[in-house]
């Protein structure tokens, strides 16, 4: 993705080399102008097949067009009907999400997307990350939000935390540092002379000194030097997270462990309020198997469900649930008709989830009719794909305005607010 690199490169010329000294813990909350609130962005990487997540189990075309992938009506987890009266059910493996839905703390938003949906993973991710379909190479939407806070106060390097290997595009913005920490155990400073008294401390001080000279006339060196500085400055707080003891057992997979870490960051109050987490494998072109005991899509749903349920219960137990909102997205939905590999190709609109203690649970938006008639207005691409009903930027606007206390029109560059999507 050479284009993304060129964006970052352009951004770095204006990179601020300083970073906040202590007292940051409350800075973000203060800048937010709202009560201390956590936002977790969840990326379902690869393009999630929304029709298998939220099943229109009374639509005959769903079964016609998906002879092997259609999920039998008797097995779906019924959650009621949408405002058009269409009954809907969650994937059978989403029992935890069904329970959270039952507690009124899960919003399921249907048919989210945008006009001329990209079927490219990379362009699609860029568009969802920037919220600018016409020019998706600039700063990310969360990055721009953080940037707007930075105008008021210098942000701490731990203000935002991506629990993945590299800074997600949604969080990138010029001058906004994002901690990318998939795992806190390796986030520590080592010394080759641990047995020599005093040496580890001397080495750590020396590394900090070396990193303190940031050549502002050489932005590439300044960028990496600042990264070293920020790493050194955040070691001790990150180490605290490792001492967190959750109230539930999280699944022993990457997604579950990342959510446990995020709960730890929140509980230890080290200052982070905005998080990014990902679970991948949704690019199900072949052998998607939505129903088998060990089916590929069933495993995806198991990972999603078990991780989110543990996270929800843990936050509930520690009292953090009402301060937390999780919002999921995926770069596109998938083709309605299954392909010859018993999978689905890249499509258009899909579903989003919003979960949290102050979420107004329920089904938002209306389901598409899957009638392949090219004149069917709820589909696009000659009846091949689900077309969007709710602009994804309307969901972002709800989060920015209603949850973060920000100004969505300024962050998103336009007024996308939709009163019917006030899920929080």
């Amino acid at each position, binding site marked *: 993705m050479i284009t993304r690199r060129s964006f970052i490169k352009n951004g770095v010329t204006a990179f601020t080399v300083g970073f906040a000294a202590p007292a940051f813990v409350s800075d973000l909350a203060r800048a937010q102008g709202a009560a201390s609130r956590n936002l977790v962005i969840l990326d379902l990487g690869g393009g999630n097949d929304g029709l298998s997540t939220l099943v229109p189990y009374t639509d005959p075309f769903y079964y016609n067009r998906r002879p092997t992938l259609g999920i039998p009506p008797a097995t779906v987890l019924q959650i009621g009907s949408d405002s058009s009266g269409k009954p809907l059910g969650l994937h059978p493996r989403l029992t935890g999400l069904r329970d959270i839905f039952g507690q009124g703390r899960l919003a399921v938003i249907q048919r989210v997307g945008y006009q001329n949906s990209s079927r490219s993973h990379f362009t699609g991710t860029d568009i969802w990350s920037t919220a600018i379909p016409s020019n998706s190479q600039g700063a990310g939407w969360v990055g721009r939000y953080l940037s707007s806070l930075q105008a008021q106060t210098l942000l701490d390097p731990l203000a935002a935390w991506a629990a993945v290997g*590299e800074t997600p595009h949604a969080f990138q913005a010029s001058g906004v540092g994002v901690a990318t920490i998939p795992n806190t155990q390796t986030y520590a400073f080592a010394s080759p002379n641990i047995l020599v008294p005093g040496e580890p401390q001397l080495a750590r001080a020396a590394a900090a000194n070396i990193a303190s000279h940031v050549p502002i006339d050489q932005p590439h060196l300044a960028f990496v030097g600042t990264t070293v500085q920020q790493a050194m400055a955040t070691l001790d707080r990150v180490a605290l997270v490792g001492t967190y003891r959750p109230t539930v057992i999280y699944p022993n997979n990457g997604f579950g462990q990342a959510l446990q870490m995020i709960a730890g960051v929140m509980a230890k109050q080290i200052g982070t309020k905005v998080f990014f987490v990902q679970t991948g494998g949704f690019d199900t072109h072949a052998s998607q198997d939505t129903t088998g005991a060990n089916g590929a899509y069933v495993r995806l749903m198991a990972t999603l469900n078990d991780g989110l349920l543990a996270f929800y219960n843990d936050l509930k137990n520690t009292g953090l649930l009402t301060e937390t909102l999780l919002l999921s997205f995926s770069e596109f939905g998938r083709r309605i008709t299954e392909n010859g590999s018993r999978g689905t190709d890249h499509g258009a609109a899909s579903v989003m989830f919003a979960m949290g203690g102050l979420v107004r649970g329920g089904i938002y938006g209306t389901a598409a009719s899957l009638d392949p008639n090219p004149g069917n207005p709820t589909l696009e691409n000659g009846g091949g794909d689900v077309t969007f009903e709710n602009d994804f930027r309307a969901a972002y606007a709800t989060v920015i305005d209603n949850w973060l206390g920000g100004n969505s029109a300024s962050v998103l560059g336009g007024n996308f607010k939709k009163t019917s999507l006030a899920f929080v």
Partner: protein
Amino acid sequence: MADALIEHLLRRAGFGGSPADFGVYSTMSYAAAVDRLVNYERVPDDVDANIGQPGYVGTTSNGPFLPNTVINDARQRWLFRMLHTNRPLQERMTLFWHNYFATGYSKVSGAVGPDDGTRLMAAKQTDDPLRQKGQMELFREKALGNMRDLLISVAQDPAMLIWLDGNTNTKRNPQENFGRELMELFSRGVGFYTENDVYAAARVFTGWNLQITRTPTPTNPNALSYQFIYRPENHETAAKTFSFPIYSDGGSTIPSRAASDGLQDGIDLISALAAHPETARRLAGKLYGFFVNETASPSSATIDQIAGVYRQSGGNIKAVVQSILLSAEFADSSSFFMRYSWPVEFVVRSMKETGWTGFSLGTTLSPLVNMGQQLFEPPDVAGWDLGQSWFSTGMMLARMNFASTLAANQKFRLATAAASAKQSPQELVSFMVDRITPASIKSMYGDLVAYASSGATWTGSDAQMQTKASGLAHLILGSAEYQFI
């Protein structure tokens, strides 16, 4: 200056230089050094024979070392080659193609199991009982070959047929995955194809499938052989029309053909894509960033120049790379250290400069994951995010901590090598920055001397030399200045 240029060349066309490497190359003219690197077929390809031999870096396995069937052993064999090969440019281009045609072991092994997954990614044909050739051996073989030829081989490579689902592409249900990425990532790039082109490309490659044959061997009665097969009965024979020219007369429709001749559809499309000017420009941009400079965008004249060599040579990658290495822009000192090192480049160069005797490549595997680059496991088909994306705080700490591990392992050897510099902390620092070479020592020199002088009073004792030599190695390797090549 000449030495600085040779060092630059070895960082970019190789993985840096050990003292012995400099001994070989510093006696040559620059042109002769480029010639030796580019025309590597004149140099024996015997590096694998040294695995397990004294004097070379070690490996660590669960049981015997099986680089053709165990993925972590395959990773170590590749790192071994990067460190010890006498054909460094061949390994470097293999790495380039691995990122360009990024294929992930997990999906392949998910389809065929871990042993065969490793075979399809990395088996050396001469070692495999069924002469299976892993994808990386294809990249090595054609590292500086012809682009059209490489694209055809990749389209028919068993690992790729699994990775992008070509093995299930049939006329009843065309599979779009490979056709889309062929145009978006392997040739013209996003913005130069339409959704209708994707549907047409999927139909072009219908019938380009995978044949799996049970072929008993003396040791394995259930051994499987994986071969590309064109299945006429799966091929869609209708004409396919594209939004761009396929033929030299400007025609953009691949004609309807008998199923028995349908293999030609894919050859026609790949030939058109390989010859397209946007493919040339896109590849030129990637090679420029890989070899010359990542901190500034190339001028369009530079891209035109590189793309021009590609087109005039009919897509000959050797001609393109040679012209880049011989260009004034490459050799200019303003290009030195302007490339963010990839994690494997950082790890291999660290070992080359610090030392490897008594160290094991097994020790690099988990740090490389934390640095964000596990070989044979790129994050997706677009490959790794390069440049500044390698430098989050966590990934930087992983580099610093690997530096610590390597320095601790080499402390006795470093102290011995530095024995002549034991008179003073300043002498020791000078020795170390000569051996381990960051982009600049200007701003760190004073801090290094202060560190070397800190703690116990300087005596130059063996114990103190071991502590401070390894401590300095750790600090230099972990500095921002060392992360550039």
